[in-house]
């Protein structure tokens, strides 16, 4: 018997409030006193009454104390939580058999349910409906991941809120999501023990898999390093492990899995050029995989090879080569010799284009350069001047796409406004073909380039003409480039040529009151010049009368060249006569930029420096005087490091893919920067600029760790200082290049002093490369790192995570179920509340006692006896 609200084996009764049993002692004393008095008074009939009342009192005390009577073993509600993820695929049958064995040991009143889980849990059988685990095959569960926490949470919520409850976890404990211990704490607090039933290890024999490829993250040029492979598989089985770099044949090793089920292979490699190297490793078997998981698996490693930074200087000028030679290995080539493959550029940490017109680089060279910067983390410095930064650089194509600036004069308070009408020929002669395309096509492209070159805030109109003008786009501020492009596509070359009516229409547009207020008004005529003399005379008269500038691009060769030249020059504009129609688009864009005006600023000024690693040497008192620059605007995401007095970019930077790009617009080798070149800050400035842009593979200021988790990687950067403190409050960013080629920019949060971290979601297998940049608030602290890791996509773990399972068991006070033993054999007895019976008995006794007394009273009156309640001595 237990007096506490607990239980012990063998208990028959127990009390929920045993403290009230003390009243029994009080009652006994009372009863003894009452009994003695009754005997002394010879109240035999009264003693019966005392006995009845004493019995009622005892019953009431037992009821108050909460008497409960053992009623057999307690019924239990069990939720079996069975792992069906890939890592336990071989043990599925065994686990089902064990569930069935445990089900067979359930007793009457017990209820069981079943949850299957992998990446997510699903209730296969709710509590009370499970009778056969083998029949439970309806559920479709994603098996590529394991979330034990979610499964346990669902199990707990699916169990009844009260009563004896248990969860039996059948899993290898290799969770890939969530935290099972977190849910174990909640289960413990709710009084739900979790029993563990790990599968038999022999049934977890893995399908052969390459579990790890290890390599040092950073090595020096020429330094030998080892790539190690670790594979797990069936003991004694033969396999082939291979390692392959980005070029060359794979190195293979034939191995046999040891009695412990592991096999290793290693390859020593040496790289003689700095750069980022990806090595792919593979495992293949001679036999097909019995589990159907495929007989080949792959993984890989990424190694950064660092050395003395190498710079490729491109162009006719060698102004900066001398300045850089102390810190970099500089190779100089002409623009035509720029490699046409990214592989040929791989060893260069930065490329400098000085005095190189973008159109000098062909498509292959531009693509190679772009790929080198974007995917290999190299840097690009463009030292621009009036000839190289012009309208031929389209902001969204070719080299222009790389630049952080847009060289078109932009809108804003400082931008001159322009009203431009493009009048282009669509007569039948424009159907003549040049280079496989009709001339009308080049005219269309020319108009398109004008559209690209002009900011949307300027006014633009477009007229096509044959013998009569056709309005493509009425002159209006805020032209809609897309609509105009679509209309241009619908223009077909047909008819004779009459220039004058179209130009007259343009002049009429430009002469309205609204447009007349715009400071610059201009007509750009594109034609092949085959007009009639009458039309030419009329054109001349109209133009002369209008006093508006008329620029002409003529595709008609020498025909009417003299007339057109004089006509354009008479208005103060220019005429172009390209020999090749293919030059038309570029000429149109350049002319549009010229007529827009404001492309260059040529006046002395002192630039403003922003806090940046490049400008550390340019403190406010040491900023140089400059004589001019090419007007441009920073693209979204770009950073203006040096700005003009009008806040135009002088030096702008941004990150492009994994690489960094800087553009200097004030002609570093020309007269604009003459004073700057003679200053003592010039050389450090150039060096800092190239150093910041150049790919930096390893920096002693940062220690980088990449921890691959099951569905993500953690990027952790430690920033200690030399004085043993931590570099706190840094701005640490990273650019991540995914295997698909997409680049993602990340910001690392400072999780504790000097530690910066972020999580990288990974899904696609392949190499991930990360360029990390750190900067202090005052830009005096800078650090850069380049790292990589390889994501195989294989999140499967082998064996049993006994540490986790044991902890789950211990936290919840559960048990380990070995073999077919059941956790339900020992269970507390169920106790039934006896109070209803006790109170009913007390009430019946009370009734009997009353009825008996009444019957005696009636009977006594009939016999003439005095009732019990009348004392004898009174009657006497």
């Amino acid at each position: 018997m237990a007096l506490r609200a607990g239980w012990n084996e063998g208990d028959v009764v127990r009390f929920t409030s045993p403290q009230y049993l003390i009243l029994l002692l009080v009652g006994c004393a009372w009863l003894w006193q009452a009994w003695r008095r009754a005997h002394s008074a010879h109240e035999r009939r009264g003693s019966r009454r005392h006995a009845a009342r004493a019995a009622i009192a005892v019953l009431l005390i037992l009821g108050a104390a909460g008497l409960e009577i053992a009623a057999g073993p307690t019924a239990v509600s069990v939720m079996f939580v069975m792992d069906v993820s890939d890592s336990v695929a071989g043990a599925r049958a065994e686990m089902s058999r064990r569930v069935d064995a445990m089900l067979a040991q359930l007793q009457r009143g017990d209820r069981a349910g079943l949850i299957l889980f992998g990446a997510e849990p699903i209730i296969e059988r709710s509590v009370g409906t499970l009778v056969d685990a083998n029949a439970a095959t309806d559920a479709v569960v994603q098996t590529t991941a394991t979330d034990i926490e979610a499964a346990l949470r669902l199990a707990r919520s699916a169990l009844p809120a009260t009563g004896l409850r248990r969860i039996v976890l059948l899993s290898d404990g290799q969770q890939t999501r969530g935290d099972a211990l977190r849910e174990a704490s909640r289960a413990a607090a709710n009084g739900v023990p979790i029993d563990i039933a790990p599968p038999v290890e022999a049934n977890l024999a893995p399908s052969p898999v390459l579990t790890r490829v290890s390599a040092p993250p950073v090595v020096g040029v020429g330094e030998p390093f080892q790539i190690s492979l670790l594979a797990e598989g069936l003991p004694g089985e033969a396999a082939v492990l291979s390692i392959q770099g980005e070029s060359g044949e794979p190195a293979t090793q034939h191995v046999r899995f040891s009695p412990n089920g592991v096999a290793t292979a290693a390859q020593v490699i040496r790289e003689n050029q700095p750069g980022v190297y990806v090595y792919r490793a593979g495992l293949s078997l001679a036999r097909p995989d019995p589990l159907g998981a495929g007989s080949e698996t792959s993984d890989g490693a990424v190694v950064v090879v660092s050395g003395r930074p190498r710079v490729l200087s491109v162009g006719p000028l060698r102004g900066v080569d001398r300045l850089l030679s102390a810190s970099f290995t500089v190779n100089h080539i002409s623009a035509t010799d720029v490699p046409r493959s990214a592989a040929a550029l791989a060893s260069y940490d930065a490329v400098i284009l000085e005095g190189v017109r973008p159109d000098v680089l062909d498509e292959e060279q531009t693509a190679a350069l772009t790929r080198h910067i974007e995917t290999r983390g190299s840097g690009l410095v463009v030292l621009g001047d009036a000839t190289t930064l012009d309208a031929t650089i389209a902001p969204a194509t070719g080299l222009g796409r790389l630049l952080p600036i847009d060289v078109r004069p932009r809108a804003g308070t400082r931008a001159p406004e322009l009203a431009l009408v493009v009048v282009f020929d669509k007569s039948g002669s424009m159907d003549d073909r040049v280079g496989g395309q009709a001339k009308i096509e080049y005219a269309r492209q020319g108009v398109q380039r004008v559209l690209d070159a002009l900011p949307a805030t300027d006014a633009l109109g477009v007229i096509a003409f044959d013998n009569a003008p056709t309005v493509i786009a009425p002159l209006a501020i805020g032209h809609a480039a897309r609509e105009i492009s679509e209309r241009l596509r619908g223009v077909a070359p047909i008819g004779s040529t009459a220039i004058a009516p179209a130009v007259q229409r343009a002049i009429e547009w430009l002469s309205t009151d609204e447009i007349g207020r715009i400071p610059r008004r201009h007509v750009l005529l594109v034609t092949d010049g085959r007009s009639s003399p009458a039309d030419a005379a009329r054109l001349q008269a109209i133009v002369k009368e209008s006093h508006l500038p008329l620029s002409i691009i003529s595709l008609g060769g020498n025909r009417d060249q003299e007339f057109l030249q004089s006509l354009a020059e008479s208005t103060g504009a220019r005429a172009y006569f390209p020999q090749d129609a293919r030059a038309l688009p570029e000429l149109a864009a350049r002319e549009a930029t010229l007529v827009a005006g404001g492309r260059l600023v040529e006046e002395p000024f002192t630039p403003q420096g922003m806090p940046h690693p490049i400008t550390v040497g340019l403190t406010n008192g040491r900023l140089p005087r400059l004589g001019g620059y090419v007007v441009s605007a920073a693209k979204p995401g770009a950073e203006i490091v040096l700005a003009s007095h009008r806040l135009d970019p002088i030096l702008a930077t941004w990150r492009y893919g994994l690489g960094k790009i800087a553009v200097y617009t004030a002609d570093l080798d020309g007269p604009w920067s003459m004073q700057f070149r003679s200053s003592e800050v010039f050389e450090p400035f150039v060096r800092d600029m190239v150093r910041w842009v150049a790919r930096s593979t390893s920096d002693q200021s940062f220690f980088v760790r990449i921890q691959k988790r099951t569905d993500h990687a953690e990027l952790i950067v430690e920033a200690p200082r030399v004085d043993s403190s931590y570099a706190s409050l840094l701005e640490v960013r990273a650019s991540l290049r995914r295997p698909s080629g997409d680049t993602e920019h990340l910001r690392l949060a400072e999780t504790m002093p000097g530690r910066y971290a972020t999580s990288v979601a990974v899904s696609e297998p392949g190499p991930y490369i990360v360029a990390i940049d750190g900067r202090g608030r005052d830009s005096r602290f800078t650090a850069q790192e380049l790292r990589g890791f390889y994501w195989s996509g294989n999140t499967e773990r082998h064996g049993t995570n006994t540490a986790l399972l044991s902890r789950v068991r211990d936290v919840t006070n559960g048990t380990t179920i070995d073999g077919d033993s059941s956790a339900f054999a020992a269970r507390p007895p169920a106790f039934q509340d006896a109070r209803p019976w006790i109170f009913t008995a007390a009430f019946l006794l009370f009734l009997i006692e009353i009825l008996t007394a009444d019957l005696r009273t009636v009977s006594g009156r009939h016999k003439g006896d005095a009732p019990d309640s009348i004392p004898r001595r009174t009657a006497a």
Partner: protein
Amino acid sequence: VAVILDTSVSMGTVQNGETRFDVARAQVRSLLDRLPGGTRVFLIPADPDPRVIGEFRASDADLARAVSSLRVTDAAAQLHRAIDYARSARVGASRLYVFSDVFSHVFSDVAPAESISGPDVEWFSVGVPAENAAISDISWRRSMNRPHEIEVLVTVLNQGVSALNADLTLTTGVNPAGRQRVSVDPHAAAKYSFLLTDPALTITAHLGGDDAVASDNSRSLVVPPAANVRVLLIGEGGYFLEKALSAHPNVTVVSSESADHDLVICTGCREVPAGTADVLMFTPPAPGADSFALVRTSVEHPVTDDVDLDGTRAVVAGSGTLDGVVIAVAGGSPAIVADDSGARRILEIRLDSDNGPFPLSTAFPLLIANAIGWLSHRGDNRTILTAGEPLQWNVGVQRQTPVVVAPDNREVPSRFANGILSVADTRVAGLYRIRLDSGDQTIAVNPAVRIDSESGGGPATPRAAGGRIAAATAIRTDLTVALALASLLLLAVEWRCGQAGTRVM
């Protein structure tokens, strides 16, 4: 139907003189008025461990009382879990009403959209963006070479549309330890650093000024003392092992088995030494053993954190006895094995610690330091939690069951089994005390500040004294005992009166 009520910190935002939670409760009452009186209603607070407060009829006065008794917590909302729970077999609600200051799309990154916004779910949103600032994070780190110095990093989050200018103060215990003027742009965060010497155990950062939510203006941390580890060395030790131990600042080597020790390092042991202390074993070297390159397995284990083992050649000492997690292999055999499944932690290194390149490598002392850290359970017990996170402390064998005391001095329900103390109810932020045989231990529970709150979240301002999660479970009281005692008393009185009457007559 199920009524799911957001009880997270941001629901305590005061707007127009009342909290969002007050508004939500009014909406709940309005909904209940519109429901047919016989409708079965489950009331579920959406805190980190969703549960049913009770099952009521819509017209039941107890339901209204239960709604009124709910309070805002300092924890984050787990609305998607509450919704899952409401749909689960235990509740089985066919219609769900969610009252919150966030919208369903906020949770789309943690739960499928259909699961949180299906046709059976109706959302009631309360609140508008508020002017609030919070201390969203506090962390610390001991200086590398100056153990008496720590650096504290505090993150201040401005959730409002106005720039924040306020004082940020740091106190150690009750003493001021630092003050900085902070300036944070709207919808931005800024970090501030403090350097403290000889810090007290408890450090609290406080942000001055009035805003929509008061309690997220403070955040605490507990700095555990740098514990000394007493190592019993059994066997010959070896030059490199002793060097590695002597380089460890917090290790004291004892040589007598009778001396108190925290862990055992045994060189040349063939079996695990007897006792209860955790063990680092070096398998005895075999004569003429070969050396192989070490390769770490895919197991992430604290013993190999920051240790570059790969490729290091080591003389394989021999086969061991431990059946645990293989951390590294050499020559196809397990080389480093860890076992955490029993009452003791055991690490077996089956490599020669005195010969070959392994003990000469930089990895060796780091491996030993990590091993001591893992075996001494350092860092196992967290001293900083976010409200709502379960607490799990490994406290070992205790003579008396540990007691957990909340900041408001109430005893928190806890479970103690197998030396592990578990507490699920940490919904109230503040300093908790754990009473152990060895004395009180303190942990800091900080409010959950939603960084990406669209409505400027934070814990509640107005709240009743005492526990904030009021259990509405004590609505009905069992009167059986009282009635039984009353009957007994009546019986005694009647009996006594009967006797007295007898004597009189």
